[in-house]
């Protein structure tokens, strides 16, 4: 379990990005941080792998303060997927996926085998293994990014708007793929997005943030939809109401999110 113990972050230029946030991220579930741009989501996420060190407070993983760990080792043990895939343009797809195994000293052959397996896992044709990132579409690059994040079979997967830069159709596909993956793998996923629909689709638990990382509401998508904590949340989740008012409907014991036209928009995981 990842725990934030009243963490704050003030950047050198004085920006107070996160103010005294406490949050628990339960294991083997997807927790989504959602909020508008600048609300401190990325800052919070990056505290987990020490890409950002809190100015105050602690982040613990299974009770251990991350500040006491070796940052490089910590990062090699945590999957990290970002918006612009962050792939190394001069390395092939397989080499990119195998980055961390190779850093950890795996044999080339084993690392490549692992990379090929992961390409299957994330739905990439193996024939792309020797291509370079610049030869792939945005959606394919994101799949490579996810595969790289999974390369050492980490318990924790950090995903920072991983599907934010691809077109809506492909995004939809990638979201479905992630849901499938998560059903199979059961990682502790901390997922950041500014898209409330994405948050409701992917999150077992959704954390709605306001400026300064202030937590406005935590709950399952159904709980938040059913009873928004305040006007801010109601506004936020209802931002699209005019287009497609979402509501939850029980079908065969599953929670279905249905839009105003009665078309299912997704299934709630629990």
């Amino acid at each position: 379990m990842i725990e934030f113990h009243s963490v704050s972050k003030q950047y050198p230029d004085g920006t107070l990005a996160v103010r005294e946030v406490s949050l628990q991220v339960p294991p083997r579930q997807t927790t989504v941080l959602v909020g508008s741009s600048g609300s401190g989501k990325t800052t919070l996420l990056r505290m987990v792998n020490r890409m950002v060190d809190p100015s105050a407070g602690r982040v613990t993983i299974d009770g251990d303060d991350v500040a006491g760990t070796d940052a490089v080792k910590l990062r090699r043990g945590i999957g990290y997927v970002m918006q612009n895939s962050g792939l190394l343009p001069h390395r092939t797809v397989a080499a990119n996926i195998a980055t961390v195994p190779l850093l950890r000293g795996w044999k080339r052959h084993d690392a490549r085998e692992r990379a090929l397996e992961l390409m299957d896992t994330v739905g990439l044709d193996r024939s792309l293994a020797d291509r370079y990132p610049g030869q792939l579409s945005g959606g394919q690059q994101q799949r490579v990014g996810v595969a790289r994040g999974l390369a050492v079979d980490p318990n924790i997967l950090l995903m920072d708007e991983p599907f934010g830069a691809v077109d809506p159709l492909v995004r939809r596909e990638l979201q479905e793929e992630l849901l499938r993956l998560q059903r199979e793998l059961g990682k502790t996923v901390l997922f950041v997005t500014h898209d409330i629909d994405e948050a409701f689709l992917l999150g077992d638990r959704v954390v709605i943030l306001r400026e300064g990382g202030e937590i406005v509401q935590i709950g399952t998508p159904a709980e938040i939809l059913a009873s928004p904590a305040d006007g801010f949340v109601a506004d936020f989740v209802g931002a699209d109401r005019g287009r497609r008012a979402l509501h939850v409907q029980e079908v065969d014991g599953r929670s279905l999110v249905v839009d105003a036209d009665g078309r299912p928009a997704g299934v709630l995981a629990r």
Partner: protein
Amino acid sequence: MNLIADGFAWLTDPANWTGAGSIPERLVEHLLVSLLILLIAGLIALPVGFTIGHTGRGKGLAVAVTGGMRAIPTLGLLTLAALWLGIGLAAPILALVVLAIPPLLAGAYSGLESVDRRVLDAAKGVGMTGLQRFTGVELPLSAPIVIGGIRSAALQIIATATLAAYTSDFGLGRFLFRGLKTNDYAEAFGAAVLVIALALLVDGLFALAQRFSVPVGVRVARSGEPTRSAADRATGRTTTNV
């Protein structure tokens, strides 16, 4: 016209191609000392430039220092150094090292600076150490620019090393100064042609190195043409991008 003909006559005179102080000897001398100067300047400038580019700190200072160094007239510095260090190679080496440092430094830090911050951030995020990011990401991606710096330094050294003969018995400049002194313009002209040819040759070699240092992945991305992988060719299948 006569000068040109005489110059080429000098260049092709077999007598000038053998023995002590012959063209090949001076050519090799010129090249080796240029290389030595490039090495010294590189050992000073590249580590500093890489450190600045890697850490992002000290760039203002570097810009100021290189700007200042660029403003130093090389001939003046050479004369001063010769007065201080005496006749010999030390003075021209010092002057030319000063000349070569700015382009080397600029190539090194601007090369590293040109690497996409997001790529570097990701490399750090997956657990690469500072050194691993330098050797595995920054160097390969900045190589063309860094080599460009070395290229312009080499070119300046080779051209300006001609001046070294002003204070020492060295290099192709020897023919030039002797020719000028003895009014043997054919020799001076022939020497000038040799310097130019050498500079062009070295420049060409560096241009090639620069071209080949562009990582394959960057080159194919730039060309925008997805090359079909071996597997695709084998199965006669093209992969459509999602």
